[in-house]
C-alpha cells in the first residue's frame, strides 16, 4: 500500500503531506477561480448580487458515508443550499470545513469531494474557502463536513413561519421518509429486493418554482431531521395557527412504507434531504403543485392539508379518525414485536 492511500495524522500536521493533500487533492477537485487563489480568506465580491444577504451553517455527520442516492459530499452541499433556498434566497457561495479521521482512504475522501464539486456545480454555488483538520482514528466515523452558505434574497420575497394564515394550503414537493429510510437500510444491512434511495438533492430550482407559481407564498421549510411532522409543528408554533394534514394525501413510497411498518417507524417523522414543505395562499396551491410536477424533483408534489384553527397539528387518518401529530420525541428506535 502506498503511503498516500490513507489519511494519517501527518496529513493534518501543517507540513508537506498536508500541503499535498490540500493543493493536490482538495483544491484540485473543488477548483474554481475564487478558491484557486488559495489565500487565507476569499474575496467574494464578484459573487455579490442585489438583494438581502442570507447566511446559514450546518455540520454533516452521516453513517455510512456513501449510501444509495448520495453521500456525505452531496448531502453537505444540498443541505446547505436547501437551507438558503427555503428562505427564498438564491444560493451563491459555500465554505467547506473538512474534519478527516486518520485511516480514511484517500480515494473515499476524493469521492466525497467530487460529490461536493458536482453538487455545487448543479446548484450554481461556488466553494469559496475551506479548512482541513485530521483527527485520531475512532472518534468521528471517517469524515465530518461543516459548511457555511451565502445567498441573496431578491426584493419582494418575504418568507417566514410567522406569516402562515388561516385557510392557507400546505404543499409537499414529493414523497417523505426516503432519506432516513435509505440510510437505515444501508446502515443496518437489511436485505430487501428494491433499493431505497435517498432523496438528497439541491432544491434551489424547486424553491424558485414555488415562488414563481405562488408569489404570495408564506413559508417554506425543508423537513430534515424530525421529518414532516416536526416541521409542521414548528410552522404551527411560530405562526400560532393550527395545521390539519390528510394522511392519505401525504406521498410515501411503497417500499419506504414497508420498511418503516416492519420496524415500527413512522415516515412522517423520518428525515428528508430533498423535499420542501410550502405554505401558500389556498388559491395558489394547485398552480404550485402543477408547476412542481413538471420538475424531476417535484413529480410527486401534492397538497397535503391546510392551516386553520388553534395551534397544533392534526392528522386525519386514512380510516377517517383524527389525532394530534406531535413533534418527534427523542429518536425512533426499532420496536420489539
Amino acid at each position, binding site marked *: 500500500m502506498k503511503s498516500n492511500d490513507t489519511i494519517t495524522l501527518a496529513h493534518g500536521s501543517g507540513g508537506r503531506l498536508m500541503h499535498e493533500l490540500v493543493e493536490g487533492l482538495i483544491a484540485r477537485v473543488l477548483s474554481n477561480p475564487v478558491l484557486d487563489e488559495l489565500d487565507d480568506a476569499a474575496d467574494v465580491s464578484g459573487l455579490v448580487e442585489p438583494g438581502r444577504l442570507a447566511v446559514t451553517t450546518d455540520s454533516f455527520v452521516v453513517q455510512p458515508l456513501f449510501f444509495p442516492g448520495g453521500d456525505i459530499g452531496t448531502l453537505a452541499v444540498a443541505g446547505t443550499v436547501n437551507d438558503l433556498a427555503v428562505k427564498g434566497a438564491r444560493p451563491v457561495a459555500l465554505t467547506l470545513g473538512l474534519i478527516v479521521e486518520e485511516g480514511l482512504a484517500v480515494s473515499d475522501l476524493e469521492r466525497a469531494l467530487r460529490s461536493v464539486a458536482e453538487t455545487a456545480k448543479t446548484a450554481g454555488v461556488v466553494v469559496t474557502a475551506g479548512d482541513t483538520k485530521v483527527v485520531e482514528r475512532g472518534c468521528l466515523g471517517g469524515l465530518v463536513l461543516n459548511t457555511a452558505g451565502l445567498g441573496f434574497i431578491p426584493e419582494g420575497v418575504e418568507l417566514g413561519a410567522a406569516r402562515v394564515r388561516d385557510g392557507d394550503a400546505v404543499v409537499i414537493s414529493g414523497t417523505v421518509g426516503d432519506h432516513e429510510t435509505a440510510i437505515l437500510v444501508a446502515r443496518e444491512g437489511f436485505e430487501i429486493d428494491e433499493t431505497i434511495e435517498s432523496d438528497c438533492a439541491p432544491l434551489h430550482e424547486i424553491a424558485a418554482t414555488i415562488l414563481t407559481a405562488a408569489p404570495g407564498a408564506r413559508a417554506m421549510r425543508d423537513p430534515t431531521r424530525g421529518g414532516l411532522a416536526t416541521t409542521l409543528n414548528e410552522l404551527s408554533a411560530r405562526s400560532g395557527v393550527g395545521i390539519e394534514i390528510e394522511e392519505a394525501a401525504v406521498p410515501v413510497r411503497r417500499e419506504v412504507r414497508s420498511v418503516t*411498518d*416492519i420496524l*415500527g417507524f413512522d415516515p412522517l417523522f423520518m428525515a428528508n434531504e430533498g423535499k420542501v414543505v410550502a405554505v401558500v395562499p389556498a388559491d395558489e396551491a394547485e398552480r404550485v403543485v402543477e408547476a412542481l410536477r413538471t420538475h424531476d424533483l417535484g413529480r410527486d408534489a401534492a397538497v397535503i392539508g391546510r392551516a386553520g384553527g388553534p395551534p397544533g397539528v392534526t392528522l386525519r387518518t386514512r380510516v*377517517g379518525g383524527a389525532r394530534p401529530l406531535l413533534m418527534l*420525541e427523542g429518536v425512533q*428506535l426499532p*420496536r*420489539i414485536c
Partner: protein
Amino acid sequence: MKELLDFEAFREGPEAEGLVRRVRELVDGPTALMEVCGTHTVAIGRAGIRSLVPEELRLLSGPGCPVCVTPLGEIDQTIEAARRPDVTVATFGDMMRVPGSESSLERERAAGADVRVVTSALDAVKLASEEPSREIVFIGVGFETTSPTVAAALLEAERRDVPNVSVFPFFKLVPPALEFLVGVPDRALDGFLCPGHVSSIIGSNAYEPVAREAGIPCVVTGFEPLDILAGIVMLLEQVRDVRSGGAARVETQYSRAVRPEGNPTARSLLDETFDTADAEWRGIGAIPASGYVLSQDLMHRDAAAKLGIERPEPAEPEGCICGAIMLGRKLPGDCPLFGTDCTPRDPVGPCMVSSEGSCAAHFRYEHRRST
C-alpha cells in the same frame, strides 16, 4: 425483510366507513374491550380509532407491551451486565431508554458501556463469533412472537459451538395473562382483541379456556386499521350474543396469518429451548406459569447465572397507577401524574416508558382530546 409487504390493501378503502357505522350500531351501553398487544395499542392510537367510536365503548390497553411488563429488577440486571468491562449487551431498540432504578442502557452506553442495538437475536450470535473475547448478552424480552427467534438463535449458537453468547430470558406468555385478567376483581371487561402475531405462533386455540371457561369473547385481530375495526365489530357482535345468553367463543379476524393450532415449528422450538415458569409482571405481580426459563440443556446460556447477577427488588415509583391501567381498572387519563409529572421524555411508570405502552400511546396520539 426479504420480501416487501404491501399493506395498502388493508389500510384504505370505503370499508372503514361501513365498519365504523356498524360499531356505532352495535354499541348500546357501556362496553370495554381490551387489546393485549403493544402493536395494537399503537395502531389504535395512530389510526385515531378512539375518535371514531362512541364514548360508551372503552378501548383498554392491557399488559401487551413487553417493555412495560418487564420488572424494574430485570432492567437493573441488564444494566449491571452492561457495566461489566468484558460484556457486550445486545438489545432491541425499545430497551435502550427504559430507566432502571438509577440508570438506563442509553446512559450506560454514553458512559462507555458496550451496548448495541440489534434487530434480531441472531445478530447477537454473529457478534459473539466475531468477538470471541467478549460475552455477548442478549436481552430476551417480548411475548410468544419474539421468543421463537431467540430460541432459534440459542440453538444456532449451540450448533455452531459459539460459547460466548447468553440471554436474559425475560419472556412473558399471553394466555396465562388473559386468564389472570379475567379473574381480577372490579375489572370491566367484555372482550379481548387477541394479538395477531402472538397467535400466529400459539394458534387461536390457546384462547379457548378464556372464552369457554371465563365466558369472555376473544377475537384474534390483525394490525392494520381496517383489521382492528373489523375485529372490534366481531367482538361487539359476540358481546351482544353473550349478553343475550349466548356462549363466548374464539374467532379469528386475522385468518390470513393465524391457524387454530398455530405454527408447529415455532412451538417445538419453544418447547426445546424453554420450560414454563411463574413470572413477575411489572405493575401487576406474579402470574403463574406465565414466563420462561431456559431448559436444563441450555441453562449454561442464562446470562444472570453465567455472570452471577442477582435480581434486586427495587421499589416502584409512588403514585403510579400503571398496574391498574394494565388490569383494565383505569385509563391513562385517570392517573394524576399523566402528562404532567409523567411524560414520554420523563416517564415515571412503565406504560409511559415504552413507545408501545398505553400511556405513551395515549400521550402521543390522544393527549389533546383527553386534556
